[in-house]
């Protein structure tokens, strides 16, 4: 007993053998039917995409459309944004005291803060250095 698949293969084989013998009118009708089916499929896809265009999908679609229409300008925007981020990050890092420059390291230094402020010590250093 033949299975469904085996029967289907036989039918396909017979159709393939006969397809070259079809006359022009049949071929035209087949082509016309195929085009109708393709057009119907395209219409259904458009309906589905229109229904999903609400909410977040809509935003993504607009973003995609924007990128598509501005595909030359988009790299410029990305580069500018990256440059601004780099600039701001650099500024913020520059504001941070380096590891040995905080007040804690001043207080922990071998010389006390008083040594840096005592004008008498400055005079003493200048005088003893001249000798």
């Amino acid at each position, binding site marked *: 007993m033949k299975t469904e698949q085996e029967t289907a293969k036989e039918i396909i084989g017979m159709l393939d053998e006969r397809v070259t013998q079809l006359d022009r009118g049949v071929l035209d009708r087949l082509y016309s039917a195929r085009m109708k089916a393709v057009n119907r499929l395209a219409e259904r896809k458009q309906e589905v995409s229109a229904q999903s265009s609400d909410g977040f999908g809509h935003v993504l679609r607009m973003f995609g459309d*924007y990128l598509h229409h*501005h595909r030359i*300008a988009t790299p410029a*925007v990305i580069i*500018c*944004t990256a440059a*601004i*981020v780099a600039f*701001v*990050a650099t500024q*913020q890092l520059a504001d941070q*005291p380096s*590891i*040995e*420059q*905080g*007040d*804690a*390291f*001043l*207080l*922990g*230094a*071998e*010389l*006390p*803060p*008083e*040594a*840096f*402020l*005592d*004008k*008498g*010590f*400055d*005079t*003493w*250093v200048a*005088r*003893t250095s001249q000798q």
Partner: protein
Amino acid sequence: MGSAYLAAIALVFTLVSNPVSAEDDAAHHPTWSQLTEDQQKVLNPLAKEWDTLRPWQRERMLEIAHDYPKMEPDRQKRVQERLTRWSRMTPYERENARKKHEKYQNLSDAEKKELRKKWREYQSLPESKREQLRKQSPEIYDNDDIDN
């Protein structure tokens, strides 16, 4: 196109900006009881006067507490010994000390050693002699340095 640039700039500043809220303010200028146990331990010499310190003074002291764990034990000891005196200095004195400390850091090891030796010698002088040296000192700082 212009709106795209503006949107990008707005996004960047939204991401990197640090808006100051009431909670942030409390975090930057906490009272003594609001400090963590570790902060209280470091800033202990200031316990009695902490709540009288101005917000910017507290901020500076918190920076010290933040850097404290990165230091060697002998440095930590010196920090605690000098903390009270430091907190009572004027902003002008502190800024001058920072500037001169920065110069000191740029000296060679030999120069630093020499300067420490001279400090010990200076400290061994009688107070009257040191006072005399102070009077003989020219005005070291220009008006430009007085920016506090």
